[in-house]
């Protein structure tokens, strides 16, 4: 497709990734645009959206994956959010959670703050970083067929993985998730059958 020449449409890519979603899929988002993309694909009690704590999304995903090894955990975050917590990649690679997948929406820019160039936009390749640390699999995806293959891979829980989704640098209209962190936490735990204090 012609429009994929300069990268995927982020909303299309995230919608395809979360289509026909299994009840066994738990999603954590980084702050900003990835949270809006996941919200736009359809709110779900099994989504936990970060509105801050930049650099923390992958570690929230790791803790969740270790506590829920029989479910698939997907972290959807941006390239700069991932870069801010780069040490987490090493911690995750050491822990090797077979049920954790990190999807980095990479537009090479800080979309929320005025499209300043980010490190990935200046040459850092996060999939190669993760591969060098020992992730079971990594890939860079630039078309929707690659997104569909990633979708199918989420259920397999075949080893910790990281996929970089090359998306266009643009800001679609914001679709805002709930901002009350306690509400998000309580509904997530309730969906898994845990008590809410």
């Amino acid at each position, binding site marked *: 497709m012609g429009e994929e020449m300069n990268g995927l449409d982020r909303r299309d890519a995230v919608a395809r990734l979360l289509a026909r979603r299994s009840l066994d899929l*738990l999603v*954590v988002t980084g702050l900003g645009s990835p949270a809006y993309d996941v919200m736009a694909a359809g709110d779900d009690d099994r989504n*936990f959206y*970060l*509105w*801050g*704590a*930049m*650099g*923390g*999304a*992958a*570690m*929230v*995903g*790791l*803790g*969740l*994956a*270790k*506590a*829920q090894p029989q479910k698939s955990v997907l972290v959807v975050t941006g390239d700069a959010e991932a870069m801010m*917590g780069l*040490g*987490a990649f*090493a*911690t995750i690679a*050491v*822990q090797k959670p077979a049920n954790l997948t990190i999807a980095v929406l990479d537009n090479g820019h800080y979309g929320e703050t005025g499209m300043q160039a980010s490190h990935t936009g200046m040459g850092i390749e996060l999939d190669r970083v993760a591969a060098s640390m020992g992730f079971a699999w990594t890939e860079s995806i630039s078309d929707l067929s690659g997104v569909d293959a990633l979708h199918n891979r989420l259920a397999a829980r075949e080893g910790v993985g990281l996929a970089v989704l090359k998306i266009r640098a643009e800001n679609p209209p914001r679709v805002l998730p709930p901002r009350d*962190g*306690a509400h*998000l*936490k309580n509904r*997530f*735990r309730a969906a*898994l*059958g*845990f008590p809410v*204090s």
Partner: protein
Amino acid sequence: MSEAEGDQPMGWRADVFSVLKRHDVRHVAYVPDAGHAAAIEMAVADPDINAVALTTEEEGIGYLAGAWLGGERGALLMQSSGVGNCINMLALPNAGRFPLLMAVTMRGDWAEFNPWQNPMGQATEKALNMMGVLTWRADRAEDVEPLLHGAASMAFNGDCACAVLLGQRLIGEKQWVKK
């Protein structure tokens, strides 16, 4: 090495881990410190505990929030210098009212040899309090168990962020030069 406690070499060091076990902690995230060496060793050896080595302390804040979303309790073992690394990440337990249990070994607190430890050591408790973390100080071995128990109770029963500071007098003076 820190000084040993005479005829009770484990003492409060073992109490830290036993309190975590009693509160059904399943995840111990840590950046190593000599004062936590015993608890870390016990956590790594325990098949019911996920022992998670961190590259920086703030990783533990996110990790434990994720474990709680997944229905399990955890604790973060770290040194006071790492509290500074956690500041912005503490927005997560604050905004989400997540339980958080931290045991912090102090530096820059008493009889400190290295002056570079003093700024963060002196700011540790205030920094935690400013970010909404409740704090208790243990300077005597017999206080560690009850204070950590109390902090764990308020964390897991009341969705609070709680830290017990293990004072440098308790841990013992670091011997920099072998005698």
